[in-house]
């Protein structure tokens, strides 16, 4: 039994780390623009594909210390490439709508998501592409559970990225500007901050993190396919809400929480209900938790307690 629980815990933490990285992108964008960026899930997918082709191009250099350097170079390149894509999309599809209703940029994001997914499907590949694992398949036995090197790497790398982001946002001038703009763009402008730059930066970092999440995800599951963004994106979005949308530590917590909820939900529900509620109810479980959290604590676990008046940021229409 201990082995079973530990195994589920390890699985939960790994997928949770990935959700957390993607959730960061959603939460940062929402925090500053109050925009649910539907296109973010596709950044995740594009990131996986970009990394795939970079790795394929540098496959001859794999292995050994050079291989490790190449791997990190691929990470950086993917981050930058998709980050730039994010900045471009913001400039083209969201910035013109900044003063329009709240729904318009959200639906524009939807259109962008459709475009990205179809572009990849039509011009890159319809088939799932096999993604090589980053690390050799070494595994450890911990109390009867199988923990792979890959899983440890993913969790460690994701946590490192999150800590880096937290440091950046709390200590550097740019980071503080971002936080200022998140809190109140008008006041930030009054203080002389040009809000375009922090916003572009958010659209560089958020999608970049999503792309790295896509790379880690692709390496873990061994596959990258044009349709992989939608569901994972939706789940990461739920994670961001659970933790408190707009809150960076909230997104991190929410990601891990969702990972735990999902894994234990799918694993334990059948056991606890003697098969009455099967593992297919995992998603119902996750959505139900989301609905309950929103009804009783809309700000999520780490968001500031939101009063009814505080919920409306700007005119809807």
């Amino acid at each position, binding site marked *: 039994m201990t082995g*079973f629980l530990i*195994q*589920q815990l390890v*699985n939960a933490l790994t*997928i949770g780390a990935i959700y957390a990285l993607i959730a960061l992108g959603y939460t940062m964008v929402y925090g500053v623009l109050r925009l649910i960026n539907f296109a973010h899930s596709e950044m995740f997918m594009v990131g996986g594909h970009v990394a795939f082709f970079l790795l394929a191009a540098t496959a001859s250099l794999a292995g050994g210390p050079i291989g490790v350097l190449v791997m990190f170079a691929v990470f950086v390149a993917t981050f930058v490439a998709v980050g730039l894509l994010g900045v471009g999309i913001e400039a083209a599809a969201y910035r013109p709508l900044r003063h329009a209703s709240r729904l318009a940029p959200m639906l524009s994001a939807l259109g962008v998501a459709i475009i990205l997914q*179809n572009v990849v*499907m039509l011009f890159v590949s*319809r*088939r*799932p592409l*096999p993604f090589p694992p980053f690390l050799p*398949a070494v595994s450890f036995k911990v109390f009867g559970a*199988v923990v*792979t090197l890959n899983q440890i790497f993913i969790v460690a790398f994701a946590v490192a990225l999150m800590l880096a982001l937290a440091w950046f946002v709390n200590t550097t001038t740019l980071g503080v500007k971002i936080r200022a703009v998140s809190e109140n763009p008008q006041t930030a402008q009054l203080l002389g901050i040009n809000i375009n730059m922090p916003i572009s930066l958010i659209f560089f970092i958020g999608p970049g993190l999503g792309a790295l999440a896509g790379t880690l*995800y692709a390496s873990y*599951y*061994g*596959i990258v*396919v*044009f*349709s*992989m963004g*939608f*569901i*994972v994106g939706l789940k990461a979005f739920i994670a961001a809400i659970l933790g408190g949308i707009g809150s960076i530590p909230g997104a991190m917590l929410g990601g891990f929480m969702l990972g735990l909820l*999902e*894994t*234990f*939900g*799918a*694993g334990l529900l*059948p*056991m606890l209900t003697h*098969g009455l509620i*099967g*593992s*297919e109810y*995992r*998603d119902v479980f996750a959505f139900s938790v989301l609905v309950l959290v929103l009804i009783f604590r809309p700000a999520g676990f780490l968001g500031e307690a939101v009063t009814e008046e505080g919920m409306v940021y700007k005119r809807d229409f």
Partner: protein
Amino acid sequence: MIRKLLVAVLGGAALAASPAFADIKIGTAGPLSNAEALFGTTWQNGMQLAINEANAAGGINGQKLVLVRQDDQGDPKQGTLLAQKFCDDDSILAVIANFNSGVTIPSSDVYNRCGLPQVTNSSNPKVTAAGYDNLFRPIANDFMQGGAPAAYALQTLGAKTTAIVHDKQAFGEGVATVFRQNFEKGGGKVTSYSGVTATDVDFSAVITQLKTENPDIVYYGGTMPGVGLFLKQLRDLGMKSTFFAADPAFLPDLITTAGPANAAGAIVSFQAPPYDANPKLVKFKGDYKKSFNEEPGPYSAYGYNEAAVIIEAMKRAGSGVTRETIVKELRKTKLDGLMGTVEFDDKGELKSPTLFLYKVKDNDFVLEWPKS
């Protein structure tokens, strides 16, 4: 003078209106832009191959065949709209539609109303439940796909227990249900019957549960990429049970997704004999690769077969081929096709469906049963 003019005009009109020189169109609708885009596109590619061959051989009495490809996104709403569109277009004389059973069932109502001969690739038994005389299914249905592997597992492998997982979609659940019924009827025990979501990538929760059951066999009813990912995780988590899957898994991507070591020994059901079993199949595989620059998809051969059935019926219908004559000729089909003999019973089902079980060995699919 007037009589000559009249004859000239009538003669000209007759020539112009004569359909003898118009193209014959065959419509097809399948998922081309959703998660199943790979299956739909390669399926229609197979049809295109058959049509290209027929055209190269002179077409139907000199008339060229054209394949009109449409995208239904696996959505019954779009499937029925397309069905009506095809119906209204008089130059379309037959359709190969749809791919998903959930789309074929409502669209068959529309095709039946307008009398279009419909050849379908959907395997759910309910598809032919309405008894439409214009609907034909030249492939085995789920009863076969779920039944034969169960018999093989019980008799040849001597398995006693199985765990069944399906992806909660119409096809996956359908075959899984049939497999379960047959396995239990044959005296086996089903240790668990669980569902996962088709878009899931992480099956570790379910597999961890399966590990505690330790079944002889794990049957996965579902489609790619789920089946490949499931197999990979099954082996990664240390389970050694024999793995069974249905025909969406019959493509090289299964081996690349799961990894050759993990995929070895998996049993996949498929309706065509091995690509090297007879010269027709060898030619098919070669031609497909040449035309489309990739390996045939799991349903390419099926698509080729379906188009061939229609083309053959059209040829037999002779000149002045219409929708009604094609339906009549399809009834009488007796074709030695790419996947075996095609002959329909009075419900439009295949008279003698065949199913083959392949084992993954050395990065390829090797025929396991029936051994000829």
